Each structure stands twice: as C-alpha cells, then as structure tokens.
C-alpha cells in the first residue's frame, strides 16, 4: 500500500454547501423563496408523528421531546462540523412516509442468505422496523438473558426500559437521533443480568421493504460481568429507495463485555443513518465492528463514552463503496475516566465515483489521565474518480496520556502488483488479491469465526466481480 496523501479534511464540497444553505432557509419556516418542495419533508414527519400510536405517558413524553428537538435542529447542513463532507439533501428533500408495518412478501427462505452460521443463531427479524415473530428464531440463551421486541416489552410494562431508553442516545445533540426518538416504537430489547454469559450470538435482522422510512430503536443493557455478542444486520431483498434511521443504545455494566457488530448491507438505492451510542462502566469492554457496503447515502455513527476507570473499547470498521455511493463513518470516543485504552482501525476501499468519509473523534477529558488511545484510518482508492475525506480528530485535555492517530489515502502498490505479476498472476487477479488483502486485516479482528469467514467470502466475491468487470 503506497501512501500518496494524508488528508485532514480540508476539501470543499461547494455543491453540497449550496444544497445545504437552501434547505436551511426552507427549514426555518419557509421564509425563503427557494422553497420548491411541497410539502416540506419535516412537515411530513410531523404529520406522521401526530398520527402516532399510543403508549405509556413516559414514552409519549419522550417521543414528543424527540419531535420537538428534531424540528428545532432541522436537517444538518454541511456547515455543521459533523456533516461537513456529507450533504443529507437527498434525504431531506425526499418525503418518506412511515413504512408500512407487516411482513409483506418477506419469507423465511429469503432471509437465509443473511445468516452466518448454518446451526442458526438466536435471531430477531424486523420488517420495516416491526418485529416479526414468524420470521424470527429462538435458541435457548440461558438464565438471566432477556431478548425481546421492544414494542412488546413496553406493552407488558417492563420497568427497566423507562430507566434507560433515551438516556444514552443524545437526541438533544443529534438530529437523526431526535427523529428516531420521535418515532420510537419497536426494535430489540436485550437485557443481561449480572454474570449472565450468552454463548450464542444474538442476531438482529432489519429488513426493509418499499420506499418508506423506519426508525428501529434498540436497547441493550448489560449487568455486571455479563457477556454477549450482538449483530445488527441492515438488509433488503429488493433494490428500493427506502430510508432506515436506526438508533441503538447500549449500557455496559461494570466488567461487562460486549462484542457488537453492525452490518450495513442496505440496497444500493437506500438511505441509511445508523447510530450506536454506548456508555461503558468501569472495567467494561466493548468490541465494535462496523461494516458499511450498501446504501446510496449512508452514515454510521458509533459513539462511546468511557465513563468508568479502565473501561476499554475497540472500534473497527470497513467500508467498501462503488458507483456513486456516499458512505460516511463517524466515531466518537470520549475518555471521561482515567486508565482507559481505546483502539480504532477503520479501512475503506473506494471505487467508481463513490465518496467515502471517515471522521473519528477522540476526546480526552481532564480527569482521563493514563489514557492510551490509538486511532487509524486507511483508505485505498481503486479509481481516479473515487474520493475520500478523512478527518481523525484528537482533543486532549489531560496531561499524562498516550494518544496517536493517523490517516492514509493510497492506491494499489505498483511494486506489489509487479511482484504478483512476476509470479504468473495476471493484473485482474493481482488487483483483486491486493484489494482483498488491504481489507482483510481489519476483517481479521473479528473474533466471531463464522461471521469472519462469511464476511471474508463476501468481500472476496465483491472484489472478484469488480476485477472481472
């Protein structure tokens, strides 16, 4: 991998900025003459919100807070630092009605290709954001483990939900989280009692159908010294232009260990904003892996807060883009407590005229002494028209810390190409091998073997197809 440039995010995107400005004006009450959309997409969300289903008072209040906040914040423009390289105009300018509930034409057999293990994992399937018992599969998970549909749990009055829901995901700050909060209805609820160890992975599959919007909301609360593996898959069976706006809130108890995988494999026409926000108590361990391969416009946010002494996090990710895809990855690691190590490796392979973004923030608060933070982002550009903006950010307010970060953007190494060619391997295969190799080292970090094997196959097949094309 040859390093041709190290970007720090200084590139401009005038087209996106113009869109953003126009939308901004329209969003503030239609005072501007540039309002060309009727009805305004925010009003459509409002209309759907008014028709919203019933629920306990505390939830209605939370939803209302979410809606109010969403309306206040509006859609972000590229002037917003968090959205500098990503214009959400394609989402903001469309009117997405709430996706219809019901499994529609989705059959169990259709979903088999999204499984990772032939023995079958405990799987919860959601179609357009709503739980489908028929499509889901149960595997005994042991004592102290509660896995259910959030909607059902709310209905049956599970008390712990009120304590945690909306407390971790910062809807005051993030507009899409606010929008999701306004529409909280269903998703997965995973609760682990203290010392509960779940050997089996728990797979949450979110299938989208049609062209509406769904707002899956997941809540994972893990007790002291518990351990689990959770996979969130975002998929679709057809190539349609829907919008998924998902939020997952995770509370890790003392010494708890969670392996969390978010696999964004949406349709290539789809829009996806997915936020995972975590709070980690002392000695807890988070291993997060985020794959982003689908969507025409996709954004994944992984935000974690190391609240307790010696909590650790590993945030790894891989994004593969082609065509005109725009795939944005934002991560944030807040070192609040001392003695916390954090490790981050994100890699991107960009082809066609696609655009990738990585924005990784590491904040080290004044109390967070002895922080050990490592962050890196490496990108491989396969075509002259592919683009990536990478912006690793490090803000340190403590004086006794060890933090490193770096970003690279490169092309395939000529010398490595020649080495392979000189062994009889032609340019297409060589390119495929080297590209795969670039991506593979972050896949290597996946500890869940069947998942690793399947993702490796998937990535290899993808590059093999591109090499042939």
């Amino acid at each position, binding site marked *: 991998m040859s390093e041709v440039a190290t970007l720090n995010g200084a590139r401009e995107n005038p087209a996106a900025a113009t869109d953003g400005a126009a939308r901004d004006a329209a969003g503030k009450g239609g005072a501007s003459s540039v309002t060309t959309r009727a009805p305004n997409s925010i009003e459509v969300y409002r209309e759907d919100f008014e028709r919203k289903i019933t629920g306990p008072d505390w939830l209605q209040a939370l939803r209302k807070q979410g809606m109010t906040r969403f309306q206040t914040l509006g859609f972000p423009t590229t002037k917003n630092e968090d959205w500098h390289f990503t214009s959400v105009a394609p989402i903001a300018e469309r009117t997405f009605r709430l996706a219809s509930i019901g499994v529609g034409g989705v059959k169990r057999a259709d979903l088999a290709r999204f499984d990772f293990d032939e023995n079958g994992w405990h799987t919860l399937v959601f179609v357009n954001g709503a739980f489908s018992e028929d499509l889901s599969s149960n595997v005994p998970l042991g004592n102290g483990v509660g896995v259910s549909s959030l909607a059902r749990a709310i209905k049956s009055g599970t008390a712990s939900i009120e304590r945690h829901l909306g407390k971790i995901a910062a809807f005051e700050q993030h507009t899409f989280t606010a929008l999701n909060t306004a529409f909280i209805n269903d998703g997965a609820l995973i609760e682990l009692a203290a010392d509960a160890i779940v050997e089996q992975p728990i797979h949450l599959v979110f299938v989208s159908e049609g062209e509406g919007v769904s707002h899956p909301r997941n809540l994972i609360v893990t007790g002291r010294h518990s351990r689990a593996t959770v996979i969130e898959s975002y998929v679709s069976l057809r190539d349609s232009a829907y919008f998924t706006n998902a939020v997952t809130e995770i509370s890790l108890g003392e010494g708890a260990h969670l392996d969390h995988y978010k696999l964004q494999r949406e349709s290539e026409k789809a829009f996806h904003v997915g936020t995972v926000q975590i709070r980690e108590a002392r000695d807890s361990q988070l291993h997060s892996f985020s794959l982003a391969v689908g969507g025409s416009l996709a954004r994944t946010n992984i935000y974690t807060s190391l609240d307790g002494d010696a909590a650790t996090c590993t945030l790894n990710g891989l994004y593969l883009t082609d065509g005109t895809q725009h795939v944005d990855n934002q991560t944030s690691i807040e070192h609040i407590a001392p003695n916390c190590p954090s490790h981050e490796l994100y890699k991107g392979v960009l082809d066609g005229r696609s655009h990738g973004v990585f924005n990784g923030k590491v904040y080290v608060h004044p109390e967070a002494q002895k922080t050990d933070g490592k962050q890196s982002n490496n990108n491989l550009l396969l075509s002259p028209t592919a683009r990536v903006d990478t912006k690793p950010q490090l803000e340190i307010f403590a004086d006794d810390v060890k933090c490193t970060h770096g970003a690279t953007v490169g092309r395939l190494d000529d010398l490595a190409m020649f*080495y*392979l060619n*000189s*062994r*009889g*391997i032609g340019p297409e295969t060589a390119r495929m*091998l080297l590209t795969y*190799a670039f991506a593979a*080292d972050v896949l*290597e970090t996946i500890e869940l073997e069947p998942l690793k094997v399947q993702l490796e196959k998937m990535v290899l097949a993808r590059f093999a197809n591109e090499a042939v094309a």
Partner: protein
Amino acid sequence: MLEINDLHAGIGDREILRGITLRVNAGEIHAVMGPNGSGKSTLAQVLAGNPSYEVTRGTVSYNGQNLLEMDPEVRAQNGIFLAFQYPVEIPGVSNAYFLRSAYNEIRKANGQEEVDPLEFLDLVEEKLKLVDMDESMLSRSVNQGFSGGEKKRNEIFQMAVLSPRLAILDETDSGLDIDALRIVAEGVNKLRSPENATIVVTHYQRLLNYIVPDYVHVLANGRIVKSGGKELALELEEKGYDWLQGAGAGAGAVA
C-alpha cells in the same frame, strides 16, 4: 534459451543498461557480477518485465519468442522466475494462497489442470524442507514480519514450487549469514537440470563458492566489460572492481 542483444534500458531519462549482449543456454549457470550501480539489478528487473523500466534499444529473445513483448505474468507462465533482491511484503495474503494462485495460473496458461489446496499442500511439503522452512509459514502473510533471511528463503521456496526454466536470482545472497547462504545455494543446486538455466546476479564472490557458475560476466556502467569462467569471480574477489570500472568507462567513452 535466452539471447540478449544490445539491450538498452533505463528509468525515465536515465539510461542504466547501455548495450548488454548475452547468450544463455539450457543447462548453464551464469553469474552476473559488478559494483553497485552497474546495472545488475536493472538487467534482472528488465528480464522479468518490471514496467518501471523502459527498454529503448535492443532485443531479447527467449526460446525464439520476443521476450520484450510479453507481459510479466506471461513471462512467468513461460518459465521465467525472478528471485527479488527486496521481496515485497503483502499483508493479508497468505503464502499458501499466493503461491497456489501463482502455481495454478501458470498451470492454466500451460493447459494443465489446477490443483486444490490439499494437493497443493502435498506438493509444497518437500519444497519447504529444501529451504528449511516450517509449514506454519504457509499461513503467514507473504513476507510480512519475515527476517531478511526468511524472505530470501521464501523466494527460493517459491522458485522450487514454480520450477522455472530460467531463474534469475537478484542478489539473493546479500544480507544472508553463511548458514542461510548455504540453504539458499543448496536449494538452487537441487533445481539445476540440463533443461533449466540460472542467472545469478551478485555483488560478492562468496555465493559462487556454493553455486558454481559456468560463466561469469562483469557489468560496469551498464555493459558487460569482461566475461570468463568461474575463475574470473575469484580474480574479482582478489582485485575488486576498480580495475574493470575503468575499462567500462573507457568503452562507454569510445562508443
């Protein structure tokens, strides 16, 4: 087997090879020696088809075919192998996968059936012994984290598996301790046959104690300034290159 005629080549505007003429027959071992910057490695790279180098004049014929028109992978498929001076690290590709791909590509190009991973494993086991490497290296990434000696042995291992007709060893001895050198040389000697030829590019005579050449050529300023038998290598060891470099420069001036 190989006929090089008045070969000129370089990078960009810089001419490095200034008229090499050399003939290598099957069954022969040729040593190409010379000081740093004489063009030894360039010759090796050009023969293997490194696209960074441009051939500006001359011809190279390999078994009657125009070698210079062949892409590097086609040269390899036709039996040419270059053991790199600086083997390239390829993180994320295992030695097994890499070498099996190469092996199968070459077989395919020669109308032979590909082998599956298990057959391949059987095939490579004895070759590993040849270079004293452990089977565990197969699952490691190509050259990644390898010591200098391991990288060179890996080149010879690859050569053993791919069994080329014309092997070019580019300073395979540099940076090797005497034990590693012996292993490498033994590997090369075992592969010697009346059908194959080897070009050994080296700075030092030391390697030629173990791989005995039929011919020794001395390169200076991009030309062969002296050719002879194996005793020429000893003479070079004794006298150094200085006395020949003058000859090379003189020849260049005349031309």
